[in-house]
């Protein structure tokens, strides 16, 4: 077994008196993928930021290649061969790929001016090593997709001769096909002897990629295991500190009559001739690649982009939905894909966010009944298990999972018949994710009809009673729970026209 390239021992760190990391040890060897797991707030980011030289530890030692190091800045860490690809990519959109890759360490000619032919040639070489032959080094970064930008970031790291590559949730914003490609790149880097620290929430990737896995919880080291020694269930319970019964607790709910029926619905290029029915107590999953029209369909049903033609029937009666307000009044709720953008007013208190969609329900005349409003918010916070200091806390201070629960709480106040959940667990940690799935189960038991959009295949497969697959704005398949296998769904996601779809 090779010796670790970087090893951290006894790392501790406090911020304003709060210990966020307690005596954590971690190491990574050349040619290994070491996954770092933990819920939000477990200390993963703090640990990798210390490795990257962004934070200085209060206690603990960093040994790189046998020598003890003190990183005063990210420059020191880079010099020691440690590079990081952050979740938010740090590229300059107005510059070309080549300009970005060598930014800060451009090769120079004998005269001391930047050697552009060399910059472009070496960028080409780095991209080719990543099997990214399709990316032009002279394209501006702003025209690239997220996946392409990520590869530019990786090339940038390699251009600095990184021996250790830290990847912080690299697949969080990628679609499935790009995830596969990224995983191929990671494997290739491992074969070339790069040591990789891989932070991710997604179990399937960890089992596909990692050699070892380290779990953190509440700033403490829970354990480090070889990947062969553990299974998914064990990892999850290490992360949340309690056993989780089932990853996708599909609640058995009685499925009733049709609540929502859509016939030949159209809006622009992304919602084309869509028909389906949703029944009481049912979870209908919508699968499809990004750009397949999933979110656009939700926005049309919710009145954000009203349908240009087609019919929507609610409880058998035709309705016209021209605004979110009308949709709300008809009993349709929409938990949006991007909760920061469309779901929450982050500067506002939890109490005010919870009542926002149902303000008439806590008002008499034109005035809000403060007591009733607070009581509802308190009840909702307790029922959904929102972890917060008080209901007066601004929503922006909560973690992703808790923010998502506030959005769900807001819509439950309106007593919806149809609940549309768009990526309900994106950016949410494992514990909160299971809780949101449990909430979904409880809701369908009470007769709510749920339309769930998710990019995460195991989630759609695990939670849905039926599955609607979309591509190019059209329905390309309708599958029952029993017949929905990853292969069939994947085939339908890339199919162009409706085949045997019902």
């Amino acid at each position, binding site marked *: 077994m090779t010796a670790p390239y970087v090893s951290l021992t006894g790392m501790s760190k406090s911020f304003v008196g709060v210990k966020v990391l307690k005596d954590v040890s971690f190491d990574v060897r050349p040619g290994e993928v070491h996954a770092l797991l933990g819920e939000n707030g477990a200390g993963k980011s703090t640990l990798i930021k210390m490795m990257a030289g962004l934070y200085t530890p209060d206690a603990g030692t960093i040994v790189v290649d046998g020598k003890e190091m003190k990183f005063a800045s990210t420059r020191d860490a880079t010099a020691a061969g440690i590079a990081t690809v952050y979740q938010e990519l740090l590229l300059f959109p107005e510059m070309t790929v080549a300009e970005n890759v060598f930014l800060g360490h451009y090769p120079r000619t004998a005269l001391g001016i930047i050697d552009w032919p060399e910059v472009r040639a070496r960028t080409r070489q780095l991209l080719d090593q990543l099997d990214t032959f399709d990316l032009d080094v002279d394209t501006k970064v702003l025209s690239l997709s997220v996946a392409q930008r990520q590869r530019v970031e990786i090339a940038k790291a390699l251009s600095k001769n990184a021996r250790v590559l830290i990847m912080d949730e690299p697949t969080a914003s990628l679609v499935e096909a790009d995830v596969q490609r990224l995983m191929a790149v990671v494997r290739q880097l491992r074969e070339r002897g790069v040591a990789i620290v891989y932070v991710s929430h997604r179990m399937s990737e960890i089992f596909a990629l990692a050699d070892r896995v380290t779990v953190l919880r509440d700033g403490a080291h829970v354990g480090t295991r070889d990947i062969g020694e553990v299974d998914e269930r064990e990892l999850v319970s290490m992360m949340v500190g309690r056993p989780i019964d089932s990853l996708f607790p599909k609640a058995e709910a009685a499925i009733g009559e049709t609540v929502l029926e859509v016939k030949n619905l159209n809006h622009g290029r992304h919602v084309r001739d869509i028909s389906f029915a949703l029944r009481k107590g049912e979870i209908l999953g919508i699968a499809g690649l990004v750009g397949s029209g999933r979110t656009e369909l939700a926005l049309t049903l*919710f009145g*954000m982009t009203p349908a240009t033609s087609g019919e929507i029937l609610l409880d058998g009666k035709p309705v016209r939905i021209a*605004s*979110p*307000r009308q*949709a*709300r*009044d008809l009993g349709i709720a*929409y938990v*949006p894909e991007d909760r920061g*953008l*469309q*779901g*929450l*007013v*982050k*500067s*506002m208190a939890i109490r*005010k966010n919870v009542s*926002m*969609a*149902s*303000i*008439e*329900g806590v*008002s008499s005349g*034109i*005035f*809000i009944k*403060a007591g*009733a409003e607070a*009581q509802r918010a*308190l*009840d*909702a*916070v*307790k*029922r*959904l*298990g*929102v*972890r*917060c200091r*008080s*209901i*007066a806390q*601004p929503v*922006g*201070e909560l973690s992703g999972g808790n923010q998502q629960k506030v959005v769900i*709480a*807001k819509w*439950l*106040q309106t*007593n*919806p018949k149809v609940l549309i959940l768009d990526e309900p667990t994106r950016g949410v940690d494992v514990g909160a994710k299971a*809780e949101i799935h449990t*909430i979904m189960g*409880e*809701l369908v038991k*009470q007769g709510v009809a749920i339309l769930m959009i998710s990019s995460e295949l195991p989630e759609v497969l695990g939670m849905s009673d039926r599955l609607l697959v979309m591509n190019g704005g059209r329905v390309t398949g309708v599958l029952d729970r029993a017949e929905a296998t990853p292969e069939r769904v994947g085939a339908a996601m890339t199919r162009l026209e409706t085949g045997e779809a019902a």
Partner: protein
Amino acid sequence: MAMTGIDLPPVRPRTGLQRPGALRRLVSDYGQELVVLTAIVALFIVVTMVNPRFISTNNLTSIFAGNAYIAVAAIGMSMVIITGHIDVSVGALIGVLATISGTLAVAGYPVWVAWFAPVLVGMAINSVIGVLVAYARIPSIVVTLGALSILRGGLISVTGGTWISGLPPEFLIAQKRLLGLPVPIIAMVVLTILAALWMRYSAFGRSLYAIGGNPEAALATGIPTERRTVAVFAIHGAFAGLATILFATQLQVIQSTVPPNLELTVITASVIGGVSILGGTGTVIGSTLATILFATIGSALIFVNVSAYWLRAVIGLLILATVLADMLRRRGRA
């Protein structure tokens, strides 16, 4: 208790959750307002120690009554800024409305017509601005910059810069007293309290904060953001009309110009009072207190024998300090 729309068993019950205490809520909801109030009180104490005549009733009523119209205009302005917009034309609007009101009064119309005309015309003009902002989606700063030029230029062209004199005495409501207090002070206090209650406890007021905090989320929650935007501009126009009544009836004549930079003074009052220039937070109580603070500083400078020209510099420092504090607060919760 089945208060929630849909019942759910607790996922992981949390104990110890409750509404925070009254004092903590006061400090967290009215932080900036308390700061401004403290500054006013401190200023009074210091200046009175230097020159005891400062605290005389005459001085106080003249400070407050003369500036009340700014506070009233700042109520509407605060609502507009809370909603995430701005209006740089309010000074010019008040000038136009004052001329309309004075002309009607001199022409022999009943005084109530002369009083109500500016309110109605203010609402009408600002509704047009609101429609352009909400439906044509032109940024409010651009629309109101245009309105500023049109109103100011139009006023000078139409009046030729002449003053209106010969106003009937019963028209001059700002010179009257009610229960021994000047009418402008009563109007300022009553309008501030009513507007504050309405902003804090009405669904309409709440929706303005939501729109200013995150317009997309407000729309996606079923708040009719466009209608609300037009409405808030119209209400702001009504407050500009009320401010006009107090402004135009102070003296025996109405000038065809308003104090220079009146719109900036009004915006400054909102900002120093704690209304975030980025929208979503602040109260009308803050803007009224800030108006009182400026007036007090202006008068205090005279009483301690400092050139009143320093007033602008002091207010400038206050603006920067307030906006800096706002940015730091926002960074803390980002």
